[in-house]
């Protein structure tokens, strides 16, 4: 089973990271899921692949009543992001799935009906969670051609999908980045290969530099906090992406 860790709490407003599953087989990439709670409602960010549904569901249930989940936010269409959709819907058939309009007719191959999906425009949109405004932020081509991040202005947390992801060795499994220089070595190859466009990357760096961010939470690896957030943005800005050796 995965473990849950509260990374932000202010009254009924809470962020929980669902991370690190010791029972996960090696052939599945490790993923982080995040739960935002506000006034008794929950939004699940990148709920993960169907194979890890048992681990995510049971970890989430230990922290939150899963029938109070009102929606799922999918940063993009990858199987490690959203292939568990049908299982979550089986549990909560009325749940909404927020995703880039680009993937609106692709993700239903994982489950759901026409009523399930809320198509987010390219420029992003505000998603309300029991009165808490959550901002979908454009991150197209990073890496998916229809890609959105989610910003919680009140908590000052940016959920950044695959941006900031690191494939960490077994002995470096801390939830937070402790030593930026050591950590970023495990992120470099991933970003070079997966991120598709230097132009898109430049725009994203400019956009998020202007945002007030205490924590940047990627879907793989560790959470950047404090000065490491800007350190990451600067590092990413310098990196040449969208190339392969082949």
């Amino acid at each position, binding site marked *: *089973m995965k473990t849950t860790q509260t990374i932000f709490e202010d009254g009924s407003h809470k962020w929980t990271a669902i991370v690190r599953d010791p029972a996960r087989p090696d052939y599945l990439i490790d993923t982080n899921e995040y739960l935002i709670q506000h006034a008794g409602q929950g939004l699940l960010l990148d709920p993960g692949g*169907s*194979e890890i*549904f*048992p*681990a995510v*569901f*049971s970890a989430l*249930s230990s922290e939150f*009543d*899963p*029938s109070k989940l009102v929606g799922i936010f999918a940063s993009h269409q990858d199987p490690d992001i959203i292939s568990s959709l*049908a*299982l979550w819907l*089986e*549990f909560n058939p009325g749940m909404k799935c927020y995703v880039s309009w680009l993937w609106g007719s692709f993700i239903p191959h994982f489950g759901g009906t026409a009523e399930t999906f809320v198509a987010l425009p390219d420029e992003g949109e505000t998603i309300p969670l029991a009165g808490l405004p959550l901002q979908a932020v454009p991150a197209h081509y990073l890496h998916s051609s229809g890609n959105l991040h989610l910003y919680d202005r009140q908590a000052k947390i940016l959920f950044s999908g695959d941006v900031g992801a690191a494939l960490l060795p077994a002995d470096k499994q801390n939830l937070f980045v402790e030593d930026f220089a050591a950590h970023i070595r495990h992120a470099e190859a991933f970003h070079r290969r997966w991120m598709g466009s230097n132009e898109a990357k430049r725009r994203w760096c400019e956009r998020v530099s202007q945002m007030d961010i205490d924590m940047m939470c990627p879907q793989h690896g560790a959470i950047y906090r404090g000065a490491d957030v800007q350190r990451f943005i600067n590092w990413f800005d310098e990196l040449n992406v969208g190339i392969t050796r082949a």
Partner: protein
Amino acid sequence: MQMMAGLTAGDGRERGHASSGAALDLLRIVRINEEIKRVVSVAFKINIMALNAIFLAKRAGNAALGFGVLSNELRVFSKDLRESMMTLTRLIHESVAEVSVILQESRQDELFRRTAALRPDDRQLAVVLDRRDRRHAEREERIAVLRRELRMAVDDAARLVELGGVLAKSAKIEAAYGAGFATSLGQVSGEFDGIVEEIRASLDKLRHSSFFGGSA
């Protein structure tokens, strides 16, 4: 809450077995389908042969009166046979659809079973599992009904083919009285008999399919 009491991981494990049964069933149905497709194409040939036999009997005139009557019967038989094959085809398509849904759901069933093993006392999860169990049972029931209907349709077709066999053999005898046409009438009725035998062998294979509890 008696219904929920049964929703333990053990139940799910049984369901896991049932799903591998679904994979086997699908394989068997696909084999049955292939056999039915063969019979349908052969049955179509019979229709053309019966038409030829009627024309031949007309040309032979008074020398082949008996053969003419029989070839008309054979034509009716081939029409009945095609209708019977249409019923088989419809039933087999419905069976494939049901079994493939069970196969598709079985992976999710397995994931829910694993979830329930991690949270054995989760009542909301028990409700979901219960709903899935009922849906699964309904689907199994529909497959059982289809299986019976299919078995009956195969038996009906087999009876029909028995009749076809009798007609073909009578036509062979009548052909002998065909005077100058005896050779060609004999050839037609011989081919007829051969094809009826071919269909009989196929239907026999179908009746012994393990989908109906047989060994094939």
